[in-house]
């Protein structure tokens, strides 16, 4: 049962609220699913199923509690479902590992703020920036990037890895500064 003290809220209001919340948190929810389901089409299907289930159960959500965590708990069931259906065809972690991963506060750990990411990407040296552009903006796979820029595939992986490490360092520093200011 819905535990929201505001008893005047209707079912439609609840649906509207979870829709709004889903849009706000869609990146985290998608990231959670994609981390466990590497096939992007399948992951998108899981995202859709999660959305539909969340919408159907909108009234069960207590406003003010952690929405992404609730949505990810719904997504977890969907992930396990597609894992069972596709285990023979695609690679997944074992069910035990998935359960252990879900238990370890994914939503909190995944908190990577887009605006900080944008700033840090802007600050990357040009060679790293190009790697990130080709991989994430133009969505090229490493072998295609290698072909385009004339590097070996291994060198592209190393380059991407360094660029991500630089971004991670930059974001952490910005977070520390923000905390310092707050």
């Amino acid at each position, binding site marked *: 049962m819905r535990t929201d003290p505001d008893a005047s809220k209707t079912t439609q209001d609840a649906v509207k609220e979870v*829709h709004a919340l889903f849009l706000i948190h869609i990146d985290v929810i998608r990231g959670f699913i994609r981390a466990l389901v590497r096939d992007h089409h399948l992951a998108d299907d899981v995202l859709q199923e999660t959305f539909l289930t969340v919408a159907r159960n909108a009234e069960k959500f207590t406003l003010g509690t952690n929405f992404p965590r609730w949505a990810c708990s719904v997504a977890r069931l969907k992930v396990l479902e597609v894992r069972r259906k596709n285990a023979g065809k695609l690679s997944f972690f074992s069910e035990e590992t998935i359960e252990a991963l879900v238990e370890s506060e994914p939503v909190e750990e*995944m908190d990577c703020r887009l605006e900080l990411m944008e700033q840090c990407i802007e600050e990357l040296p040009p060679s790293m920036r190009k790697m990130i552009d080709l991989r994430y903006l133009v969505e090229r796979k*490493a072998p*295609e990037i290698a072909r385009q820029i004339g590097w070996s595939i291994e060198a592209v992986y190393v380059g991407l890895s360094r660029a*991500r490490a630089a971004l991670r360092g930059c974001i952490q520093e910005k977070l520390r500064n923000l905390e310092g200011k707050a």
Partner: protein
Amino acid sequence: MNDQDKPEAQLLDDYFDDRGDAESLEQLDQHLASSDDARRRFWQRAGMEEALAAWGRKGRDEATAMVEAPDSPARTSRWPVLSGWVAAAIMLGLVLFYSDLNVPADSQDKAVMNEVAPTPRPALPPQEVDAGNPVAYLSELAGLRADFRYFKGQTIRAGHELIIDEGLMELVFFSGARVTIEGPARLVPNSDFKITVLQGSALADVPESAIGFKMVLPDGVVTDYGTTFGVKVAGEKTLRVQVIEGEIELASQDVSKMARRLFKGQAVMMSESGDIESIDYVPMEFNETLERVATLESKTRMKRWRAYCRQIDQDLSVVAHFSMLPEEAGSDVILNQSKFSKSPRIGAVISAEWTEGRWPGKPALSFRRPADRVRVDVPGEFPQATFLAWARIDGFPRHYNGLFLSESGIEGEAHWQFSSSGQYYFGVRPSGSSGAMARFHRAWSEPVISSWLFGSWRMLATTYDADRREVIHYVDGAEVARTVIEESVPLRFGRATLGNFFDPKPEVHGVQSGIGEEWSFRNWTGAIDEFILFSRVLNSDELAEIHEVGRVD
């Protein structure tokens, strides 16, 4: 961890880069199962991956791009429909009810499609018969239906009578005078300082450079002394002449009558007897209407075009579609918007500068200098192809004016370009030849673009069918030439160039008389705001449809 084990960072990279084998996955699985810290780092890495993916989506404007196009082919997954809805909700800042889920942006696009009714096939542009000198250019038009098809940006010659059934048109004379006309109307620009209005309403805005500008009416003449004034003519009679700003002189056709000076706020009419009679001043603001309607029309057309683009991008035969969306303006790469084509993914913009395209807010690339170009890598062989570009043609100053040319020297090399006299100069390298000087199979047209129409946006298209050995050229969706070439050669593009040509051996051409520098310098002069390469022959109906959706006016 034993010696064979990869470090955790490597395992995570392999996993998130989708390159790990079963063994790596197994190793990561066990590692994650056994360590809390490892699981924490796994999620941190997942968070970073998603933030990067979200950044990429934002950069590609994927939220808006995923709105469903009308009549697009059925998708295998239901999710894109939801994405369309999500995108629409984000765009509109609205949160829709669950029950709205099945009527997403689709219906909005249909509304957009209906908003602009299809216009009839274009009439031929005015030809240079009895050509006077160019005296004005067509700076704006809105909802225009006229005797000919007129193009925004084109020049108008002295003595050419414009017959407008309905709509609005703005002419800027080369003296600086700006005349807005509301149809139905008939008018003749006589010189850069004179226009005859036989019927209709007109507003003239005359700057200092055009003081003395004359407007000839059926029963009188207005001479302007630096001002804004309006006239209304119907049935050979001047029903209204009024001054919005400044001062004019109105003379009756009847020379026995006195000419009259009129000042701001004064309005007159010509009586049956040729007398100038005062009447009440009535605001005439259709120049503002023109601006408003033109803006609205442009917006509607651009929306309709964007919806249609999403349909094109679902076409499996689209090899490359560079639609140059607003979010790409200023970038040094342009994205291939085709949903299925894996290659090319991008075009590299070299030297070409961003400018305004067919509609306000639609970006285009400007080509003017020898270096201006877009480099595109198109692998593969194409027994059939259709080249299509929306281009503003500002002139053909070069011997060869390049639209899209293959990598030089490869088998199946294709040259899609125009001659200096406005002919399609399409050429294909004969099989078995690789030298720089091979004589290409030619599919040339007669001149199809006249200099009177320089400055206008046109849809240029050519289809190529190796089996039939047939090349068909189109302008604005209408066929203009058809050629059977000597040999069946599948096309190849390789490291191709849009809006130019790369000549790797200029020294070879330098020694040939007649084709020196002009062989190497083939930049387009004008702008290109859309380019599509199909791997099939589009028929004339399809090309007419693409033209209809993408046209400027």
